[in-house]
């Protein structure tokens, strides 16, 4: 229990989200007996949290001196320059750190592949080898290289015929590694004998994990994956906290919520679904998968650069593109304006692609009601353009609301341990913490470049009709705060969840409005780079008015 959150006398609190690239802060205060977001901003990591909070207080005081005085007794001239230290209000803080590296040594290549799949699905960076292919000297070097935080030694259970002899040797090799790296955590998966390790010099820290069972492709959802994920958790990890916040959102909004978190050092996807609770209330099931390989500028996999180039609407030679992305990985806040923003948009699309590819086997591709973009990457493009990123990459038939965690409140609020307390705070703040981008409606199965039907939108007391042409992206103005219903009458029988001719869906407005995405699922783009860029640019300009400035 944080406690003070339910104390009416507490006038305000701060949140801080310490990311690898960004330090985000917010000021939350009581207004009319409920928590409201009063100010928020973000700076590059390395800036002082005290100075940032000072800016927030000063800005709030400058914007609404009377309320500032009422809330906090903070009086002043309101210079708006962040020149005074912040009041001693409580703080909710979360931090994200780069994924640690796990060295994997396995008896055979088969087992190595299984362990690697589970470890990657658990959010580790992985270096791996097997006794079958790699000599013990190389395995020792692999496990003692700088940055390795833990060693996973694995054998199938029951061991395959060719693993029985290797298992004992593997344990001895691990004991040799443990003796070289005192304090290294050693995780044993499967029937790896402990005796040599218990005798090793330096008394290594051992932990037993489930054996790697199941076929390749299923390991990402295994008990081993869950155990490996637990082995790397930190109490204030903001990606873990996102899961708790997603559960609260699902309960408070009674919606299926998906969070796509993309950062510079890592990424995570959270899916939370509400369900009836035993006590008659609403419970939520939450699943989270971290994917370090989906970090925004991570380009170490074959084809990573090509995918960014695929989405980038400006032509740039490959060497230059690689250098600019590498520079952004070092200094994520540089190159902010002009085509730097477009490059970030392309990198964000490629990162979300990697995130979905890695997590679909675990979390599935089922529809959700609300997609939330979280992490610094979503704030590096204009909000309507962020909706376009979701439309381009999250290709699922159905209607979905889209929002972004613009003030980066979800991580810090997820740090509240008590579900009821967190739900109460989120219920107050839900209108402030999510920046609504709009609704994306994506039918599947339309014949391209033909008249597809008609949309009738009733919202805010107005009624509008739009003719639908398959193959394009149509924008309908639907401002934030406006809800309505869209009746879609198709000539064919596309899939929009179920398959049919007529659909009636609830839509909500946002900075992008209503996006009728009548393009193919999956999205098919021209092979020729110039035509692809032209087409992508046409769509991008519609949602990014400053595209060419």
């Amino acid at each position, binding site marked *: 229990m944080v406690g003070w959150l339910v104390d009416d006398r507490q006038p305000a609190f701060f949140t801080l989200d310490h990311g690898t690239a960004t330090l985000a802060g917010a000021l939350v205060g009581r207004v009319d007996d409920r928590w409201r977001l009063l100010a928020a901003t973000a700076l590059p990591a390395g800036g002082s949290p005290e100075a940032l909070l000072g800016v927030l207080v000063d800005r709030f005081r400058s914007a609404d001196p009377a309320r500032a005085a009422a809330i906090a007794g903070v009086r002043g001239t309101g210079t708006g320059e962040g020149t005074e230290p912040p009041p001693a209000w409580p703080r909710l803080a979360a931090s994200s750190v780069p994924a640690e590296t796990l060295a994997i040594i396995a008896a055979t290549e088969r087992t190595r592949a299984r362990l690697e799949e589970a470890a990657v699905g658990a959010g580790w960076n992985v270096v791996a080898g097997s006794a079958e292919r790699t000599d*013990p000297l190389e395995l020792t070097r692999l496990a003692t290289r700088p940055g390795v935080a833990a060693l996973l030694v694995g054998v199938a259970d029951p061991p395959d015929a060719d693993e029985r002899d290797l298992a004992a040797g593997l344990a001895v090799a691990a004991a040799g590694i443990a003796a070289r790296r005192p304090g290294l955590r050693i995780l044993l998966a499967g029937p790896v004998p402990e005796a040599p390790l218990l005798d090793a010099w330096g008394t290594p820290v051992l932990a037993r994990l489930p054996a790697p069972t199941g076929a390749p492709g299923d390991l990402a959802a295994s008990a081993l994956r869950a155990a490996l994920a637990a082995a790397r958790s930190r109490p204030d990890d903001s990606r873990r906290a996102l899961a708790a916040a997603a559960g609260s959102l699902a309960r408070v909004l009674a919606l299926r919520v998906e969070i796509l978190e993309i950062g510079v050092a890592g990424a995570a996807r959270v899916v939370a679904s509400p369900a009836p609770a035993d006590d008659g209330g609403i419970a939520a099931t939450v699943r989270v998968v971290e994917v370090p390989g989906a970090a925004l500028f991570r380009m170490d996999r074959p084809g990573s650069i090509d995918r960014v180039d695929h989405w980038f609407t400006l032509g740039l030679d490959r*060497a230059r593109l690689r250098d600019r992305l*590498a*520079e952004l990985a070092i200094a994520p806040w*540089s190159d*902010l*304006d002009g085509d730097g*923003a477009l490059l970030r948009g392309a990198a964000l699309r490629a990162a979300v692609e990697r995130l979905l590819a890695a997590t679909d086997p675990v979390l599935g591709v089922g529809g959700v009601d609300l997609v939330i973009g979280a992490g610094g990457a979503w704030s590096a493009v204009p909000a309507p353009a962020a909706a376009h990123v979701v439309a381009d990459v999250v290709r699922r038939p159905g209607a979905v609301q889209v929002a972004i965690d613009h003030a980066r409140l979800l991580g810090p609020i997820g740090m509240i341990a008590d579900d009821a307390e967190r739900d109460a705070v989120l219920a107050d703040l839900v209108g402030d913490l999510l920046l609504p981008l709009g609704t994306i409606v994506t039918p599947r199965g339309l014949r391209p470049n033909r008249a597809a039907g008609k949309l009738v939108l009733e919202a805010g007391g107005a009624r509008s009709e739009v003719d639908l042409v398959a193959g394009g992206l149509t924008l309908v103005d639907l401002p934030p705060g406006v809800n309505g219903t869209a009746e879609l009458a198709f000539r064919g029988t596309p899939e929009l969840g179920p398959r049919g001719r007529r659909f009636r869906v609830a839509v909500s407005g946002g900075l992008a409005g209503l996006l009728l995405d009548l393009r193919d699922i999956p999205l098919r783009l021209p092979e020729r780079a110039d035509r692809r860029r032209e087409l992508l640019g046409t769509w991008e300009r519609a949602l990014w008015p400053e595209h060419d400035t």
Partner: protein
Amino acid sequence: MTDALELVPARALLVPRPRIRLELQPGDRVTAVVGDAVQAGEVVAERIRDPRLVEALAPRGGVDQGTPLPGTWLPGEHARAGRRTGAPAGEFLFEHGGRRRLATGPHPDRLHAPADGHVLEVEPGVALVLQTDGPGLVATELLGEPHSGRLIVLPEDSDPRIALDVALAGAVVVLQGRVDAEALARARAMGIHGAVVGSLAERERRDLAASSARQQGGLHRLAPFGVLVLGGYLRRPLAAAVRAVLDAASGAMVGLAGDPPLLLIPADRDLPLPEPGRVVVRGGPEVGSEGRWLGPGGIRRVRGGITVETGLVALDDGRTVAIPIGELERFAVPVANG
């Protein structure tokens, strides 16, 4: 009242008496011991080349007091009557099935201390940790190997293809202008010990790595060579504070370290400290400019449609401009030496 300078991320310029790690691999023979005072250029380890595994019989119980520790050197085969001695001595890796596995191979290469200092820690086959006597100028990456040499700062407008010659053999040269892999390969071939560059593009890094790999694979290897990158991948001028440190260290015996990446400077050099309140622009239209921080400039919308926090900066050319704080950096004043 403050001017909120702390909003601007601070980057370390100098690290007083840094601890540096020199990477080892199993089979490397460490000649220094913990507590040793070493001088720049002194051999601290003999590096194994083309390591391989050999086996030796474990002696019967109690003969050699249990399992040896890592770093223990053992003969390849225990001498027994009527048997030849077999494989050369090697470093103990582990014992299994009554046999010991040893890493062995020739040791033709030497690992030199890149700076004066003390050996703090030796992790056999993993790393040797050295605390240097002098400070280190912070860089982003060392490509190649740690080394040392006299620091020569070449003029900013010099062409490395012309300026690099054999007279610089044994030196560490600062190349402020455009640098390519060919110039660096030539520098290595001329016996230059290392180079300090502002930035290096990915293509040049790859070419340099390929060139180094060819050298490593050769029968007659050239001496170690390191390229210390102070910035990133895109070319931009060195900050005035960095140039001032390099100028002050010019002529001194400096070292190149990779973990962490540092230019190691002797303790007896007086180095200029960064000026508080001075900021460097590292991106955007004013990239490379420097000036004085005036205070927060509020939230502004930049070209491309993103809104960001800005700061007001009095640039050295007399203009006062609002620049996104994300494109600014300043150098932190190091804490007292030692």
